[in-house]
């Protein structure tokens, strides 16, 4: 492997904006599912993952404003402190803008370690806000979701990129 040992670049179709909004909506709904027990403590933040992906892939479509709005929705639905998820997702959006160019140089399995710090920071910020508000420390399981989220990243990448992959017509190969 030479200097340009990046992932194989593929030609993709332009993304349809409707698909972007649809996936963000689905991520929000999945977050709102009544998770219980072990699953609740394992559950990654799907909205944060979808945001990360779309800010990395389509920065002109999805940015800080979208992240902030989705954060407010999460806050109301989780009945948490109003603004804590908004703050966390703003951090996620900033991390995504920093990583945007760098991620293209790596294959998806190597993304995991670069995504993890962003998700961990977002989670830590929520914790800090709550601790400052007088809450008790909820235990170290609080930091489990960023890890599951980072591990899910390759899957997110494949699923959200699938509609953009051109279908090769077997009768008319290029």
């Amino acid at each position: 492997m030479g200097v340009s040992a990046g992932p194989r670049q593929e030609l993709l179709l332009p993304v349809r904006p409707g698909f972007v909004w649809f996936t963000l909506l689905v991520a929000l709904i999945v977050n709102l599912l009544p998770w219980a027990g072990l699953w609740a403590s394992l559950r990654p933040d799907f909205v944060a993952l979808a945001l990360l992906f779309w800010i990395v892939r389509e920065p002109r479509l999805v940015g800080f404003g979208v992240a902030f709005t989705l954060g407010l929705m999460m806050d109301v639905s989780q009945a948490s402190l109003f603004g804590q998820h908004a703050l966390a997702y703003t951090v996620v959006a900033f991390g995504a803008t920093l990583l945007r160019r760098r991620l293209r140089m790596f294959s998806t399995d190597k993304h995991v370690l670069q995504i993890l710090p962003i998700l961990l920071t977002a989670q830590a910020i929520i914790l800090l806000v709550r601790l400052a508000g007088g809450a008790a420390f909820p235990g170290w399981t609080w930091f489990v979701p960023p890890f599951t989220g980072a591990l899910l990243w390759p899957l997110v990448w494949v699923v959200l990129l699938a509609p953009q992959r051109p279908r090769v017509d077997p009768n008319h190969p290029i």
Partner: protein
Amino acid sequence: MEHAQQPFFNRGPTPFARFLLFSLLALVLVVADSRFHYLTYVQQGVAVVLYPLQRVALAPAALVERMSGFFTTQTQLTGRNNTLEQQNLVNAAALLRLEALELENARLRGLLDTRASHSQSAVYAEILYSHRDPFTRRVIIGKGSTDNIGQGQPVVDAAGLVGQVTRVYPWASQVTLITDKDMTVPVQVMRSGVRGVLFGLGSDGVLELRFMPFSADIQTGDKLVTSGIDGTYPAGLPVATVQEVERNAAFMFARISAQPAAGVNRYRQVLVLTASTPHPENPGFEDASPPRKRGRKGG
């Protein structure tokens, strides 16, 4: 002549500037919500937008439940029916006694010429979900301000006090459970009549009766009911059972832990007591406003 250099691509503020702007905005929201409780209307607006999404999210679980309900066996149903009938008999007996007592109470109150104790009206609600915010003990129930639910109303289940409505949205409301760290319930020991304040600890199944002197007449197994002196909870609702009393001379007060009576985390059906006693007018506000007017006139 100097020309301002035109950027090739107009992209607005840099990412860092945007980051600062939005995080500052979020921090302002956090402070405004936690300290001043300003943003109720904004939250209600967001809640209205979110409502269809939440319905969609809850649909699969509801469907699974309906399916499993469809496939319950007949033996299970008859068994349940039997227990419910027995319970109904017991309840009916208690209810008859209660009616007699209520009549007697009304007569006695009439004799004493005191304000009639309010009659309770209640709204049945189901717990939609409890969310995963590990910092608080809260659940969302499926009735809101359109069903006459208001802030501060007590929520009970078949066994006792569950919590209090803390936030009201149009079609749903948030109930803070008595086990939440910020919840306190004024209680009374049923056996001895000693009054105290029960504190939530932020973990399931444990409450603490704080600031009770060593000499307080409290034993393990004592039942705690609401004392009703706060005007929020009607008197006499079962709240908890005393589990452990530790009288250690090293501390100022006895350490008393209690177990909540209601299935705070187990049941799905709750009752919201909507017609609680109206609060007496706060004398503090009345005292505070007139001097200000006078001050304006004088100045």
